[in-house]
């Protein structure tokens, strides 16, 4: 039984479709990241799961129990869901311990205290139990928030951009800490972010969202190597489109030579374009080269060149020992990789 099932979920606000026919499944103990640009509907999806909004169509099923469909709507307080907000939403009038105990009103007093102690220990805040939220640092507040959301053993944990207010220096340490805590508590979690780096570090699976739908769900490697469409490919990072013709099942021919793919090509069409990421490109001096170099900078271990080809800009790294002469004509060399091949129709 999956922890969460969203079926044909749709939500309109002010006549605007925010979520359109969205489907998603989260397996037990899995951390799934809803990843997408702002306005793609990811936070709305989270609210629909929590019951903070009521979708007009579709079904929300948590642990096999239907929470919302056309005829039924379970209020948020009866869903047993934990949620961590972007600004943590800690109650400013309650201490750390009171915040954590807030959702434990079903337990008796001694059990409640025991659970609070447990949670405080889990997030290493035992010495801060009597403090008020405004007396804590950002990272500490966040740990209170996660402890509070997990204390009452929710069926599902929702996290809304939980790391966006944290300094870059400590962010990855925290991501690891919180991931460990969630895994320790064996709870399924859905995590909303617009940063793919956070998503890679924190989640087991990623769901790329675009215009109210899940564009693709999978682990990071799959998404990178076999993006279902242009949106997914582009969202995961910079790249350049090059004309390509398929030469057999395993490769394409381009202006820069043949490229063999490490995975089967997704398209059966003959003509199309491949989407190549900078790390799969190599710059070489070539008298007939059509690539123009606009800028060259040294970034410590390597050089980065900003180059232009066919009206597209891309920044390509080059190891310090493979320096090119920017004043001479330049061309690409494409490394063997998992080729993302798209037909013309798909790209338009």
């Amino acid at each position, binding site marked *: 039984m999956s922890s969460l099932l969203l079926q044909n979920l749709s939500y309109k*606000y002010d006549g605007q479709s925010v979520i359109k026919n969205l489907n998603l499944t989260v397996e037990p103990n899995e951390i799934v990241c809803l990843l997408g640009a702002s306005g793609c509907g990811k936070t709305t999806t989270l609210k629909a799961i*929590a019951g*903070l*909004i*009521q979708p007009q169509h579709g079904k929300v099923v948590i642990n096999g129990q239907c929470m919302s469909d056309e005829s039924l709507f379970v*209020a*948020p*307080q*009866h*869903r*047993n*869901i*934990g*949620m961590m*907000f972007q*600004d943590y*939403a800690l*109650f*400013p*009038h309650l201490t750390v311990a009171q915040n954590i105990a*807030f*959702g434990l*009103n*079903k337990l008796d007093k001694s059990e409640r205290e025991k659970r609070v102690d447990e949670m405080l220990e889990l997030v290493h805040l035992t010495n801060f139990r009597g403090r008020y939220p*405004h007396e804590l640092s950002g990272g500490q507040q966040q740990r209170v928030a996660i402890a*509070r959301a997990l204390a*009452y053993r*929710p069926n599902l944990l929702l996290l809304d951009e939980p790391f966006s207010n944290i300094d870059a220096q400590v962010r990855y340490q925290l991501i690891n800490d919180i991931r460990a805590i969630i895994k320790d508590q064996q709870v399924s979690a859905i995590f909303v972010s617009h940063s793919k780096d956070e998503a890679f570090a924190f989640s087991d699976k990623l769901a790329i969202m675009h215009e109210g739908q899940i564009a693709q769900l999978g682990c990071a490697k799959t998404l990178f190597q076999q993006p279902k469409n242009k949106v997914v490919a582009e969202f995961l990072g910079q790249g350049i489109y090059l004309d390509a013709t398929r030469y057999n099942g395993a490769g394409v021919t381009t202006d820069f030579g043949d490229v063999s793919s490490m995975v089967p090509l997704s398209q059966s069409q003959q003509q199309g374009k491949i989407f190549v990421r900078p790390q799969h490109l190599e710059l070489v001096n070539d008298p007939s080269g059509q690539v123009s170099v606009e800028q060259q900078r040294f970034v410590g271990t390597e050089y980065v060149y900003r180059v232009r080809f066919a009206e597209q800009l891309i920044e390509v790294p080059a190891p310090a020992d493979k320096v090119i002469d920017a004043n001479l004509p330049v061309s690409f060399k494409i490394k063997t990789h998992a080729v993302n091949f798209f037909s013309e129709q798909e790209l338009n």
Partner: protein
Amino acid sequence: MQASSSLSKWQVFAWLIGMCLSAPLAFLIFESLQGDSEVFTHLWNTVLWDYTSNTLLLILGVISLSCVIALPLGWLTAYCQFPGRKVFEWALMLPLAMPTYIIAYIYTDLLDYAGPVQVTLREWFGWQSPNDYWFFDIRTLPGAIVMIALVLYPYLYLIFKTALREQSFKLVQASQLMGMSPLQSFFKVSLPLARGAIVAALALISMETMADFATVHYFAVSTLTTAVYDTWLGYYSLTAAAKISGIMLLFLFVSLMLERLSRKNDTIHERQSSVNDTALYRLQGKSAWGATAYCVAVLMIAFVLPVSILAGYAIDYFDEAWNSQFFLYAWQSLKVSLWVSAIAILLSVLVVFYQRIGEGKRKSVPGRFASTGYALPGTVLAIAVLLPLTLLDTKLNEWFAETSFEPGLLLSGSIFAMILAYVVRFYAIAHGAVEASYVRISPSLDMASQSMGKGFFQTLTLVHFPLLRRGILTAALLVFIECMKELPAALLLRPFNFETLATHVFQYVSDEQLELASVSALFIVLVGLIPLYFVNRSMEQHN
């Protein structure tokens, strides 16, 4: 140090304002020390305890009832979606434009033994005399509580609603996700978080209640205010009157202190939550219509019904009640109210600003001094204002004696006295509202501004004013409406032939003939509605 020298300039301003606004009271107290206290002892031995307990009961009753009416209304309109919410949101402030003595008069007419309600009941059931049945007596302490609460609840409603709006929705959502029902969230999250705002509003309401004379007098409920009148104007003992005013001041200080205490923990500069435009709870079916019905009921009782009755009078008695001078009266009311609002706001911003930049414990003293006029009933205040002003006038006349110019009663005999009395009385409202919105401006903004080379004055005008706009607007509105309704001070201090709408209405109400002044009374309400509309609109846009 440039900074410290300009700080001392602000200090001088603030203390000056504090002194000026508390001067009437100081004179009153000084005067009270002159005479003997025989009358006070007599009152102490006879009725003073009844008066004091009546006053306390009245205040407690009014603030409890205001909570019962206003807290659900604030919560419903701030957090829930139900039919008519948009309209109720502003309409529920309307009773503020209603003078208490008018609503009291109308309900007495309606509900007392000779009123249409009881007459109809007697006809239906064939009762003959008051001994045949029980009907509540409106001219009692509970009756006065209801009347005053109906007019004053909008203070709490307005302030509570704003506080809820400024709380992050996410806190309530978080509590919901942790298994709290909406009602539990209300009690465990929204209410404690808004505690400061609620106490502030209740302090305001209790001071207004304490200062009320017209209603309790009409209802024959004897309070400390009544006692002040009796001793002063009946026993002709200023000493005893000032001593009783002292008891009232004690109440005032207690409520001000409570307010300050409750603000103490409120120093967190809460992040303004992004956009609270969608409702948190979408009420459906019975609960939605229940919410609508509740709002309609409050609105009907506190506003629609009395105004309709007033309009009925106005139609029936139009020929006698119409007066070509109305526009002049309305204009004079408007003029005074606008002046007072502007001055009160300006002074309160200056004082609160000093409170913010000043150092040491004593920085909040000027504000406290300046707020003391609020709990004084109008007539007492009016006479208190006359004390320093007539003294000043005498000095002025002596000073100018050798010139051809004879100032006469330049200060006490002109509209200046009225405006001063109003400012002294309503400064506290402006101060409270401005102070409340100042708390929300992060001190780092001041530092930022100063680090960019702006002095105190520029910080005030360039940074604080724009951010305070909404608070200032609310404050100005409240002061304005109170000025439109204010009666006793106007009555006593006005220059010759100067009528405001309120004084015009009073000469008929004092003869129990509101019908003949119904048109002017409607005018007061209508003129009060205009600022309500604009302020509400600007607050809407802000949201």
